[in-house]
């Protein structure tokens, strides 16, 4: 977990290093610890240190960690041929392949370097080669989490989402409390529109981290989307920002009402967790209430206890828009009026 003061320190160091002050090594260490994704800066400053033989020899044993870090940054920035300043004792310019080559010369047969080689092949788009390298590494180290994740990344980068899902499921069979993996799986399911499975994944996330409002929100949306059939979802996306009478044409399945009620509850919990500031949740409440009242219009005579929640949410939305996007206010007004009319 990134503490606030460490994040502040990181920003300060970044500014300092950018403006030519010292402290590049400290900055790189902090980046390595906190893992923010600042690849271009890491690349720039890391290469500056590596190309300067005096600074490099100052690092001692940490030099190899720096090589690894710069290699990762180069993969991220796609700098296959980063040419830098010549130096007297190292006549070659240092670029990405060189980093990996230097490391593999120093540590032959090591797992970490093997991973880097695989990632190098991935970065150069030779997927088959990369898969071969990873398969070989997996044989020797069957319990390495990162290699499994790289395989999933390859599948995803090739656009093969079904295969990625397969790999992730196999990974999760062994390492089932890895919540990053669950999150990734949930996002893939959502993009594949398999909402029931996505909801399952979000439930796992909710169990492990119940106070993260993001997961409540995502679960609510997965539930809401479950109740609408495929063609309807595209319309709903459209409707989110321009609610019109189209909503009557959307098909609801039998379980629709239950899912909508669940979704409404989770939108409410998102609002509670985020202190009322989450706009998506506010929208979600309004839409759910409209949809629910739509569904229950003819069904039961008894009134469900009508809470103030939808109207409160609408009011909060109006206020939010007034402060932050006043131009869109008329749009919002018309949408809300439509919902109040049809409910």
């Amino acid at each position: 977990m990134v503490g606030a003061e460490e994040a502040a320190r990181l920003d300060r160091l970044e500014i300092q290093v950018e403006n030519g002050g010292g402290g590049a090594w400290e900055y790189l260490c902090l980046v390595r610890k906190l893992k923010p994704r600042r690849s271009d800066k890491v690349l720039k400053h890391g290469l500056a240190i590596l190309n300067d033989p005096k600074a490099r020899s100052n690092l001692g044993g940490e030099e190899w960690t720096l090589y690894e870090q710069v290699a990762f940054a180069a993969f991220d920035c796609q700098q296959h041929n980063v040419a830098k300043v010549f130096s007297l004792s190292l006549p070659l310019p240092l670029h990405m392949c060189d980093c990996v080559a230097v490391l593999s010369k120093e540590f032959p047969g090591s797992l970490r370097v093997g991973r880097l080689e695989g990632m190098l092949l991935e970065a150069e788009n030779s997927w088959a080669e990369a898969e071969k390298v990873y398969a070989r590494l997996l044989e020797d180290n069957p319990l390495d989490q990162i290699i499994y994740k790289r395989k999933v990344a390859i599948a995803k980068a090739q656009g093969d989402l079904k295969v990625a899902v397969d790999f992730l499921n196999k990974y999760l069979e062994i390492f089932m409390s890895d919540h990053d993996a669950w999150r990734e799986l949930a996002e893939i399911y959502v993009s594949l529109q398999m909402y029931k499975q996505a909801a399952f994944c979000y439930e796992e996330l909710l169990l492990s981290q119940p106070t993260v409002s993001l997961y409540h929100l995502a679960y609510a949306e997965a539930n809401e989307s479950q109740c609408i059939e495929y063609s309807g979802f595209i319309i709903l996306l459209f409707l989110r920002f321009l609610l019109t009478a189209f909503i009557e044409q959307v098909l609801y399945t039998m379980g629709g009402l239950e899912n909508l009620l669940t979704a409404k509850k989770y939108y409410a919990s998102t609002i509670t967790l985020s202190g009322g500031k989450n706009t998506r949740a506010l929208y979600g409440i309004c839409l759910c209430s409209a949809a629910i009242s739509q569904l229950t219009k003819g069904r039961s005579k008894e009134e469900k206890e009508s809470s103030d929640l939808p109207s409160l949410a609408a009011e909060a939305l109006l206020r939010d828009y007034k402060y932050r996007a006043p131009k869109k206010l008329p749009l919002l007004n018309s949408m809300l009026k439509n919902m109040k009319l049809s409910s």
Partner: protein
Amino acid sequence: MAEDLVLDRAIRDWVLIPLSVVMVLIGFLRYFVSKLMRSYQTPDRKVVKEGQVVLRARNLRVAAGFIPTKSFWSRRVYFTNEENGLLHVPKEQAQNPQAQMFSDPNMAMDMMKKNISMIVPQTLTFTWVNFFFSGFVAAKIPFPLTHRFRGMLQNGIDLSTVDVSYVSGRSWYFLNLFGLRGLFSLILGEENATDDAQRMMQMGGFGFDPTKSLSAEKDSLDIIQHEWILPKMEKRAEDVLKKLLK
């Protein structure tokens, strides 16, 4: 009996400090030797999986109120059902722990190494202390003790009239033995081989941890009554929004 003995300063210089220094050095030596000798134990796939299962089951138990009832029940069945639930351990397997521990050569070797690296230096140092630092009063303990401790702490001082608070070098050795643990964790970082006391405590409660924790989790999951707390959230959201809009 109650008179104060005046202890020579030279005792401090030549007994207490050298003994402490020697123990610190031996600790360092042990740390590096254990680092060299440590064999990398590849974790077993089954063990890893079980560890993760336990974590997941625990999460389910703790945060059960956040997911709808149907999902909770389906998960509970998944974990605890009799045929192939994840947490269900058949009776035969539960007997394994001891046998497995001794038949697995790797584990036995590891335990032997750990024992040796711990016991041998201790014994040697103890013998050395007894040989050199016995027979005279080395320090005075600030609180009074009973006569029982005389045999343990007053090594070689065969006068029964000397107050038990005056101890020989052996007690200083024991003090250092337990006290330097904190110092080592400062200097050598968290994981060091000098956690003798901890190691001794661990040795007592060995046994195949996964099996026990699996059944423990299963039992606690079986007990739980699910209560979905989400409905209350609607009310709370109302309150939050009301407060926000005020």
